[in-house]
């Protein structure tokens, strides 16, 4: 069982380019999340999805979009990358987006550098 996979592992991107970070889980979890991790700021929620077909904005959604066409996949798209989006991006999932006791399971992360 792989859990959560993310691709690519790392990427260097020119400013203004479009980029999609991929996230796939095989645990049949209903809820999925995208966080960015920045030094001194911890993990901040970008977007989330409580179930396939629904998405919501987190703490720092600007410049990012997501889709949830099925249970397993939750891609994150940067329509026009800017240097401030340089970060490590983590995808996570939990059984339910509506049960606050659920543990979140994290992917290995994508290190993105925007020049």
């Amino acid at each position, binding site marked *: 069982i792989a859990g*959560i996979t993310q691709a690519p592992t790392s990427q260097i991107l020119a400013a203004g380019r479009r980029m999609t970070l991929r996230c796939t889980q095989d645990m049949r979890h209903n*809820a999925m*999340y995208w*966080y960015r991790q920045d030094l*001194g*700021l*911890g*993990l*901040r*929620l970008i977007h*989330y999805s*409580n179930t396939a077909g629904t998405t*919501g904005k*987190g703490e720092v959604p600007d410049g990012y979009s997501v889709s949830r066409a099925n249970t397993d996949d939750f891609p994150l798209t940067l329509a026009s990358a800017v240097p401030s989006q340089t970060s490590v991006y*983590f995808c*996570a999932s*939990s059984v*339910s*987006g*509506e*049960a*606050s*006791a*659920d*543990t*979140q399971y*994290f*992917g*290995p*992360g994508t290190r993105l550098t925007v020049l």
Partner: protein
Amino acid sequence: AQSVSQHNHHVILSEAASLELGCNYSYGGTVNLFWYVQYPGQHLQLLLKYFSGDPLVKGIKGFEAEFIKSKFSFNLRKPSVQWSDTAEYFCAVNVGPYNTNAGKSTFGDGTTLTVKP
């Protein structure tokens, strides 16, 4: 909105020293509290969590945390650290018990623990 504060950004200890990492949250209602750990080069993973019952919870690798509701705190402890405990530790809170956004976690800034052999 809820927030989480971790008081120590970087802690350096020698092996066998005792550890306590502070975590305070701000939210007046029902909460569920988590500590996650990120070992160098690895995924974040759950260390322990509190959701009900005994406020003293025990997790993996000898860690424990105590939920003190009156202090809005959930401090992480370990009586004797090992070099392998070197990692970044994150406290997180979910507000509950059950609502549309209950699964979303608010994380603290993290504490980097370095254990010297």
